[in-house]
């Protein structure tokens, strides 16, 4: 009993005192924002037909459907082209800002607003990839996903250094951004611009209020306790959101796997052959024919897919097996991107998988990226940037995922 109490209190301490998985959360932040940004850039020439005034899914049709389900979109505020372009621009800019981790929390909210606005405006244009991005955009709002690999982290470091030198650090951008967004919230709420169920607007107001509260508490509170309490709550939300994201990934694989088990084509080992023969999913018909020319190969891939998908959630209990499966699934998604012509779906799934990557691997990835950047800059004529310090990797580096 005593041991039980001890382990519970240890667990509580763990989830309240820090935001776990800083590298994993940064990885999914970068993964989903990059997926959506690339998608928006790719569809830039088609944006009017997908979500705008030129869409066969007209504004009036969208309004009638949303009247029945209450989905959130800013695009119902006006059917004008200018408003549409502004929202598309907001979606582009917020995903770029989230990618580099500039004002991460605020941008994660704007990112969610952009994703929901466009996708819910034309819900029949999307596929599974959009579905993943949709869910993750909501979950990301609750994470502290900018603590590493972000401009915020750099700003924080520089501010800390400046304070250590005794300088006064002021930040004007934050309050200005907060003021502008508050104004936008007031206008949209007052003019009925949300046109949706109350939940997402309430979330927007809640995050905005909390950002203000955080600022006030950090500046005015006489004791440190209110600030620590807010920090604790922030950690709780972050860690919970990570759990939800991981569970969501497991549900995706479990559903995909368990339903396949029931299918006759997955049982007789021919299932993988069929999608490659569909006009909509065969950008390289010759490649598809080549890959399915052997019945035994098709059988192996068919059974392998089912086994990996069904097994994945259970392998989380063993790091080694989990990492092997993770590599297999990322490779399979990369293959799907090319063979079935689903690059954005595959990117979204790879970003989802990334939440399970081991920390040691991600740190090494970060060092590689830093080194590559340093080399790039030195080639451009600057002095060589010294190797980034690597105190956090005392272990000898052997290949692959060892965490």
């Amino acid at each position, binding site marked *: 009993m005593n041991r039980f109490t001890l382990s519970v209190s240890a667990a509580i301490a763990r989830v309240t005192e820090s935001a776990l998985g800083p590298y994993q959360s940064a990885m999914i932040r970068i993964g989903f924002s990059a997926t959506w940004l690339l998608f928006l850039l790719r569809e830039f020439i088609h944006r009017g037909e997908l979500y705008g005034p030129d869409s066969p899914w007209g504004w009036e049709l969208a309004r009638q459907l949303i009247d029945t389900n209450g989905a959130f979109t800013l695009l119902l505020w006006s059917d004008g082209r200018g408003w549409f372009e502004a929202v598309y621009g907001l979606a582009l800019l917020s995903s770029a800002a989230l990618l580099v981790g500039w004002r991460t929390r605020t941008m994660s909210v704007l990112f969610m607003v952009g994703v929901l606005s466009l996708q819910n405006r034309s819900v029949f244009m999307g*596929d599974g990839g959009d579905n993943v991005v949709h869910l993750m955009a909501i979950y990301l709002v609750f994470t502290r996903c900018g603590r590493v690999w972000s401009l915020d982290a750099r700003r924080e470091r520089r501010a800390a250094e400046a304070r250590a030198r005794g300088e006064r650090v002021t930040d004007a951008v934050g309050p200005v951004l907060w003021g502008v967004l508050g104004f936008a919230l007031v206008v949209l709420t007052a003019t009925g611009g949300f046109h949706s169920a109350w939940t997402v607007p309430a979330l927007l107001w809640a995050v905005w209020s909390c950002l203000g509260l955080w600022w006030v508490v950090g500046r005015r509170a006489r004791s440190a306790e209110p600030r620590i309490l*807010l920090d604790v709550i922030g950690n709780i939300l972050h860690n919970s959101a990570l759990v939800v994201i991981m569970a969501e990934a497991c549900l995706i694989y479990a559903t995909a796997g368990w339903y396949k088990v029931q299918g006759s084509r997955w049982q007789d080992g021919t299932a993988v052959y069929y999608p490659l023969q569909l006009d909509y999913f065969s950008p390289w018909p010759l490649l598809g024919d080549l890959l399915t*020319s052997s019945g035994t190969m098709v059988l192996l891939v068919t059974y392998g897919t089912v086994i990996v998908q069904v097994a994945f959630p259970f392998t989380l209990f063993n790091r080694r097996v989990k990492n092997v499966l993770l590599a297999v699934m990322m490779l399979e998604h990369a293959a799907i991107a090319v063979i079935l012509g689903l690059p954005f779906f595959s990117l979204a799934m790879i970003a989802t998988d990334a939440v399970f990557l081991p920390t040691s691997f991600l740190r090494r990835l970060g060092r590689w990226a830093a080194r590559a950047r340093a080399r790039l800059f030195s080639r451009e004529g600057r002095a060589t940037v010294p190797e980034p310090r690597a105190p956090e990797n005392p272990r000898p580096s052997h290949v692959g995922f060892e965490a």
Partner: protein
Amino acid sequence: MDAYDSGSDATQGAKAAQEPQAPPAPAVLPGMAVDSPATPVDSPAPGAPPGSPEPRTGVAALSPRYQIGAALALAVVAVAVCVHLGMVFLHVAPSNTVTKTHGEAIDDWIYPEFEQNWKLFAPNPLQQNIAVQVRAQIRTPDGSSRTTGWYDLSAQDGRDIDGNPVPSHTQQNELRRAWDFFTASHDSDNRAVGLRGTLSETYLRRIVVLRLERGGATGADGVVERVQVRSSSTNVDPPDWSTEKVSSQAVYRVLSWWSVLPGEAEGDVK
């Protein structure tokens, strides 16, 4: 194939009820350390590597009064997470005892923002190529009208996708999912079921008119007066190494002629 569809067909009448991720206001205090307008002077550096020695953080650093607040927040969030995951699980699970009795509560929680469908190519992958084809009655300025042959719009999509490393949603999803939406909201006699049925008819009609005009089917100054849509389903040939035999005959589902509203024909599809 609805393998990659988000299955929005089920949104019918569902209303969002509660925000699973947003527990009551006091609990929504995201850790704003990173982009707070001004970070408190001695806050634990968010950029610091995890595990760096930071004295007195977490609940241990709080007095009992604040600890109660933290415990409350933890309890609320924990409950919210459990409920949310339970709801999502029931939403993606097959119909069962619980979903049959509490389906409405689950739908209230899930729709509209947490809807999902992960039956990717399951239980069986689609084994037919379903092509949407259209023909039109065109009125020319001299008052006469002519009927075009059948245009295979899906085949056009297929050609656009061929050799394309990044197919657009306009090529891969637009028409394909519009047809899925149509079949899901119509009975076997092609009669519309509810609001979604009529919405899907308008949607499909606008897509085919848009494509006819884009493809130059109307000629120099013809106007599309009426359109007729049909689907053609052809079985995928079994693989060479299989002994299976399937019919390679196309099966058609032919809809009745639809009049095109004046606005639609001019591409004004607002």
